[in-house]
């Protein structure tokens, strides 16, 4: 075992939402660790709980959400023990987030300069006036060639790609230890997407930061992640080194996702189809994927599988793999 604790350790995270009289369980016992300078990909379809997992870690969910966990340790520090006031000092400084929609991350009535000023002063090493020079150099770092003009622009005056760059500049101004990036390129065009991914990769290394990268896109995950966790119905169903999960997936759901993208690459007459849709009702017992699984066995309907080792640092939640 390591002498020093991992950067982030999440044990049995459970998040549910009150909907009328019921509670809807969005995250059902998620556990993972992120090491120093590691990029962990959280892959899943809509409703798999990948976004709620990221938001739960940063306590960014509305009041009707209940977040429980056996432990969420950041550098050994138990985050669940922090009250709202002391957590706020961590969030946005040690723990930063990049959202899918950069427009929503900016105040539409304020300039980009205003946002960067606040981000830089938040870190409070810079005095009142020096922020501007630092802001310009940050914008240059993210590939913006006319920083003065961008600083005085309002969010609606910039394209999606430019805004996402400005947001990354804000995040690196904070020098966080952990960045949660939730589908940061989904709304962008292919060429811009690649540039933004490259930026995240470069600055992650430069800052020696770790990243929890939430995405539905296997190709992006392959490109940027060291390890990958595949989520289905609020659970991690497979986790392991990116290469192992993508080349040799052990959970039928992960295998099906991969098969779908491979049949796109090989130009077949018809694509591999996984029956059903994600986001249906989760059965009370048994495996949540049993209803769609091509390899379903009778016992899958009654036994809820736990995570089993399927390779070095590689686990899957499936009865096909011995105890």
């Amino acid at each position: 075992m390591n002498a020093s604790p991992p950067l982030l350790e999440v044990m049995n995270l459970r998040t549910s939402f009150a909907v009328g009289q019921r509670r809807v369980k969005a995250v059902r016992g998620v556990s993972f660790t992120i090491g120093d300078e590691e990029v962990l990909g959280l892959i899943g379809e809509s409703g798999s709980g990948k976004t709620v997992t990221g938001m739960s870690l940063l306590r960014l969910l509305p009041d009707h959400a209940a977040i429980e966990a056996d432990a969420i340790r950041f550098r050994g520090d138990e985050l669940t023990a922090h009250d709202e006031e002391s957590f706020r000092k961590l969030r946005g400084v040690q723990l930063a987030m990049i959202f899918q929609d950069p427009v929503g991350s900016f105040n539409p009535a304020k300039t980009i300069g205003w946002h960067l000023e606040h981000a830089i002063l938040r870190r409070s090493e810079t005095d009142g006036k020096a922020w501007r020079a630092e802001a310009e150099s940050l914008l240059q770092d993210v590939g913006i060639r006319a920083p003065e003009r961008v600083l005085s622009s309002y969010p609606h005056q910039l394209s999606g790609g430019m805004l996402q760059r400005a947001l990354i500049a804000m995040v690196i101004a904070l020098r966080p230890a952990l960045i949660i990036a939730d589908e940061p390129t989904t709304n962008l065009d292919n060429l811009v997407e690649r540039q933004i991914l490259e930026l995240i990769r470069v600055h992650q290394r430069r800052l020696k930061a770790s990243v929890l990268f939430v995405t539905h896109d296997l190709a992006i995950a392959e490109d940027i992640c060291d390890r990958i966790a595949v989520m289905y119905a609020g659970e991690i169903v497979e986790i392991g080194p990116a290469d192992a999960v993508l080349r040799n997936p052990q959970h039928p759901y992960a295998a099906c996702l991969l098969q779908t993208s491979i049949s796109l690459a090989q130009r077949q007459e018809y694509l591999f189809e996984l029956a059903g849709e994600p986001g249906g009702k989760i059965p009370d017992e048994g495996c949540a994927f049993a209803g769609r699984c091509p390899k379903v066995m009778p016992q899958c309907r009654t036994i809820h599988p736990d995570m089993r080792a399927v390779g070095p640092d590689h686990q899957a939640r499936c009865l096909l793999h011995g105890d």
Partner: protein
Amino acid sequence: MATEPTALPGQPGQTMQLRDIVLDFRTRSGFGQDKVFRALDGVSLDIAPGQIVGLVGESGSGKTTLGKTMLGVHRPTSGAIHYRGTDLAAAAPSAWKPFRRDLQMVFQDPLSSFNPRFTLGSSLALPLALHAVVPKKQIPDEVASLLTRVGLTPDHAKRYPHELSGGQLQRVAIARAISVRPRFIVADEAVSKLDVSVRAQVLNLLKRMNRETGVGLVFITHDLGVARFLCDRIAVMYFGRIVEEGPTEAIFEEPKHPYTLSLLRARQHDRAPVASDADEAGLAIPDPAKACHYAPRCARRLPRCLVERPRLGEPPHAFACFNPVPAAAAAPAPAVMKA
């Protein structure tokens, strides 16, 4: 396809022939003169019956505008749309009427393309009644059979849009489009909002409908992988123009235009640097009359490209470039493609 606008279509059949379509949008800028934004700039394209033609490009490239122009939503500023012996571009809106049934559309967001207060059955029945596709008495049966054909059950007719998932609703949207037995369907990013596993189902459905009914499809997408799976031909658009057009295999195996190549490379997550568009907000399109409009971002730019605009060459594989990509430059496809 540098056909002169005056040239009459040689084939009077059912191929839709777009010739030198120009579409300007005027935006008011307070006082003084209106600004003109040229959304389509001399687009020529043939869409043969039964074919699946992909329009690919980044946002703002004009692919959606082109699709809407084919359906008469936008009226071109100049150019011609030859279809079944009529020039639709010149025709008054009332003259489109006989062709409406031929031309259908599937949108990106299925939820906003249905009336939330109608059951899906009534949404499906309406076009059947309007176009008198089947006798009135048979409409319920026809609705049931349409739902079955797209992989749903007749029972779904009683449901409301919000009761269905995005994938199911997109199936209903496809059922509605095929219900009037059109010749062409324009599908605008019809799978981009769907989950990976559901996307495969809907793509298969679109292909099956094309194979079974012979309906032509104009498939608008930014996703080259999806276009490669579905399309017979692909037209790559950049800032209102088609820069390359040809059979799908040719576009992927032997891309000629540098822009096509950079799109392909972006998909393959090639580590080679792409021309930066970091300053895109300040990037002015050069004088459209003189230069190649891709020249500012182009890695293969020649001096000539700044003073002369290349024309789109001849089919079957047409490209608008003075310095096309040599055949060897195309990289092999990776194992995992963007899904």
